[in-house]
């Protein structure tokens, strides 16, 4: 029981590190690409860049809310699903920016 709880916490914290890194990387993208985006027309690239920054935070919040009152394994699974979805959305946005 205790070992299971500790391993769930370790897995959860490792996943949260990925959330933090995804946010930091998106912020880096935001500031790094702002010069490029500024030359481009329209509001769309800005919206996409901001969405890229907030996607991990939204995913983490949704995962934590959905996993309230559930078992430790389910929480880890939902956290993993959240970071994967956030990573997919970031990848998609990067792809959209690069092909546009």
């Amino acid at each position, binding site marked *: 029981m205790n070992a299971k709880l500790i391993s769930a916490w370790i897995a959860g914290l490792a996943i949260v590190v*990925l959330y933090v*890194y995804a946010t930091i990387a998106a912020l880096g993208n935001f500031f790094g690409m702002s010069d490029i985006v500024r030359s481009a027309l329209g509001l769309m690239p800005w919206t996409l860049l901001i969405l890229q920054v907030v996607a991990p935070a939204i995913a983490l919040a949704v995962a934590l809310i*959905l996993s309230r009152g559930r078992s430790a394994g389910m929480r880890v699974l939902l956290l993993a699903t959240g970071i994967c979805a956030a*990573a997919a959305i*970031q*990848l998609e946005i990067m*792809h959209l920016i690069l*092909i546009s």
Partner: protein
Amino acid sequence: MPKESGEGRESALQRGWTVESRSDVNDQPDLATVSAPVEAQEAEAQNAVAQGTAAQETAAEGTEPATNELAESGQTAQLSNLTVVMLGLTGGIYMLYAWVWLSWAQFYAEGNAAAVEGSGSIGGFLQQIVFWIAPLAPILWFVSALIMHRRQPRKLALALILGCIVLLPLPMIFGNGAAQ
């Protein structure tokens, strides 16, 4: 009397023969009663899929009592056939999504690995992880939805359809993907 005993033997043989046939006879009606409604439900579910969502709901209401009867005869509670059809459809869509994400992840991971070759390794390592977990998103979403809402087909359908929308690879629709 000997004839009667002979007949008795024959009947005894027949009885011995019919023990097996009786077991078959006992099994077959069960199979027939189980498989016939299942086929009928499958046909009904397929018709419902063809006719649209309104018909789907009525078919779901129609199949639920039947599956309950099946569940009473069996040990475990079964998913309704409509749920199984829905799981098959969305599972196929999610697998397609996973494949698309995988191709993009491969493309960007290679580019990123070349770009950050000289810089800090931790950032590059984490970035590689973040790239490569993207294809897992549809799979984990499907598993999570199935585990969370296995008992509630409506919530399961809602979660799976929401996943289809959230995880839709938009650049695939806009076309001209770099890593197609």
